[in-house]
């Protein structure tokens, strides 16, 4: 597994933010809310969620819009949106550097930023990307070069609560059923390390706050 690192409250003006890196992939997530909402987006029974993803180079195109939609649908399941009706929660993700794991870095950054902002969630979530080589070996957190060489790449987002059920799944390339099971299982195991990392980071944050 690649090295995970995270800095909480990286931005001073947003309600919560996190700079998250997996190997050479770095994403910065900022969360604002629950706050003001445009009248057209005002929902009477829940909070409106907005995700904005901006790439490190170039303009936001179809790929980014598709990523936004995946991240939004994932986060939506975790946040207790019904607690804040007629408000909006904005999540902005800036890709800083990418080496093939843009999706998992930004999902994890979003989760940490939400924790930092203190938004009520029913579960935390962690994304793990893996790829499978032509020889059938599963590589967790591959690099861009390894993904290019591989036959298929898959990203899974797991819930921390319960039996680590799958929130989101995304796959590129063909896989046999057995290989798919192997990928899913190994990612599930790897997600436990990510959750342990989340715990260490938040513990550190609250310890520092208690001391100061």
């Amino acid at each position, binding site marked *: 597994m690649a090295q995970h690192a995270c800095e909480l409250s990286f931005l001073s003006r947003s309600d919560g933010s996190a700079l998250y890196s997996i190997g050479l992939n770095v994403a910065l997530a900022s969360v604002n809310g629950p706050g003001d909402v445009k009248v057209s987006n005002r929902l009477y029974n829940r909070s409106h969620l907005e995700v904005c993803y901006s790439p490190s180079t170039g303009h936001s195109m*179809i*790929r980014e*819009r*598709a990523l*936004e*939609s*995946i991240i*939004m*649908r*994932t*986060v*939506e*399941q975790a946040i207790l949106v019904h607690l804040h009706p007629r408000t909006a929660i904005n999540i902005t993700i800036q890709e800083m550097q990418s080496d093939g794991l843009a999706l998992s870095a930004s999902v994890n950054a979003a989760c940490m930023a939400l924790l930092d902002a203190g938004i009520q969630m029913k579960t935390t979530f962690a994304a793990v990307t893996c790829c499978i080589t032509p020889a059938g070996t599963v590589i967790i957190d591959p690099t861009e070069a390894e993904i290019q060489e591989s036959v*298929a790449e*898959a990203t899974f*987002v797991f*819930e921390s609560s319960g*039996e680590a*059920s*799958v*929130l*989101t*799944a*995304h*796959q*590129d*390339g*063909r*896989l*046999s*059923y057995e290989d*798919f*099971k192997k990928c*899913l*299982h190994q990612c*599930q195991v790897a997600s436990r390390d990510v959750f342990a990392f989340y715990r260490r980071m938040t513990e550190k944050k609250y310890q520092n706050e208690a001391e100061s």
Partner: protein
Amino acid sequence: MTSLQVWRTFEPDSYYKTFLEHSKRPDGRGLSNFRPINIKVGTVTTAEGSATVRLGHTTVMCGIKAEIATPTLRHPDEGFIVPNVELYPCCSPMFKAGPPGEKAIGLSQFLKNVITSAEVLLPSDLCIAPNKFAWCLYCDVVCLNYDGNLYDASLIALMAALQNVLLPEVSYDEESEKATVSPERTLPLKLKRRPVSSTFTMYSDSIQLVDPTAEDEEQGSGEVTVVLLEDGSLCTIHKPGGHSIVSDFLDKFINLARKRVKLVNSAICKALAERKV
């Protein structure tokens, strides 16, 4: 208004739940029954290939236009396949006029992902002369009536239309660097694989519905789309958030989806054969 309609209008959740308690859906289907599929190919005569697909009330039309373009510098011997999904307000009040919404973009990306992951056809087969000319296939999918499960309907329409495509033969003269199109001689595309998708809606931890209608999608929380190939391998699995599932359920979905692959592909073959007669 009958009392049943009143119930449906004022208490849609309890109305729907009562059906599920009896393992039925409001349209009379069981929880793991698919809707009938109706396919017609060659419905747009001005396009190189086309198909209209009905999945229950969901109606989707796919037209493929071919144009000759210049290959990119990075891939000088590859053509292009550009799927694009249009969801106009006439098919459902869910969609608004204007630039494509989240659902349309998600669907276009999904189709593109399936074509590349499954290697439906090799981009190099679309090349006419390296660095000079290559075919660009614009696959436009338009939804005419929306009643749920756009993923399955649009993939069936796209695959049927691709199998219906007839491209005119093009000869390339190296000396004059000119391409001549002979419209009287046409060739079909060489499709390598035929992926079939199956979509499930998650209602609760224990209840999942196959081939959801618009009502099922509204009542449920999120969909899972499983795309399988004829040999049973997994082309892609698409689950953009929604209710979480344990991996045992994924196995159940994949097993249900396996049975559907043959069914859908033979329906497409039948439609193509009908056209030829």
